[in-house]
């Protein structure tokens, strides 16, 4: 086995992104879809940190810091939306939520 380099981290990041995408496409539960979305966001973070490390440049890490902050805000707002939606429709299943007006 060779020395672990940038490519190894990028492969892990790509596979994780694909996993998250698979979850968003196949799962129909809104909350699990949201978790898969977080997985995709995290894979992007991993790619940014590894690029930052192997280019000796800290700007990537600053970017990841901002992404984590924005993701925390986004999760709070998204979950509040899901709860509000569940109160109205009694379901967190995307196939029950096809109409725009209720």
């Amino acid at each position, binding site marked *: 086995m060779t020395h672990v380099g940038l490519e190894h981290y990028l492969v892990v990041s790509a596979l994780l992104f694909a996993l*998250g*995408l698979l979850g968003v496409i196949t799962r129909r539960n809104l*909350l699990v879809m949201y978790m898969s979305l977080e997985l995709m966001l995290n894979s992007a973070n*991993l790619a940014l940190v590894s690029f930052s*490390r192997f280019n000796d440049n800290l700007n990537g890490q600053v970017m990841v810091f901002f992404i984590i902050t924005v*993701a925390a805000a986004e999760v709070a707002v998204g979950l509040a939306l899901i709860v509000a939606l569940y109160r109205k429709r009694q379901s967190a299943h995307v196939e029950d939520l096809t109409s725009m007006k209720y």
Partner: protein
Amino acid sequence: MGLPDILFYVFAALTLLCGVLVVANPFGRNPITSAMFLVLTIISMAGLFVLLHAFFLAAVQVLVYAGAVMVLFLFVIMLLDLKEEERRKIKLTGLIAGLASVGAIVVIFVRSLLATNPGKGLAEPQKVGDTATLGKILFTNYLLPFEIVSILLLVAMVGVILLSKKDLK
């Protein structure tokens, strides 16, 4: 192969395994198990961050993601009673479409990775990424985005409180 390399393979395998279990859990379709495996994914990813000398980000990852965000997720899962949701089956057409598109994405990733070979021209990384340097950059070059993010958090907080009110007007 030194210890960091072995640790990389351990953490990468753990991350991907737990990621699979988030998306497709063989033990049942309960969202709580998905959330728990997402916590494990995030923690093993923090291990990868440590291997990349991003110590501050590893700590933030565990504190913010595994701590705050996942607690929020678990609260909401337990708030919404999702027992009925577990029984539904995944549609075969959706599964096939999903696998096809994800396979295409993976092929694109691998091909571009092989074509460019991004790690080739790079020297062995120097020791960067300690918290003091990161903080210095954050408070000089990125001061304005930092302040804007704090406003974003305030806006998100107000929005969440408004959304969670009982009578949404």
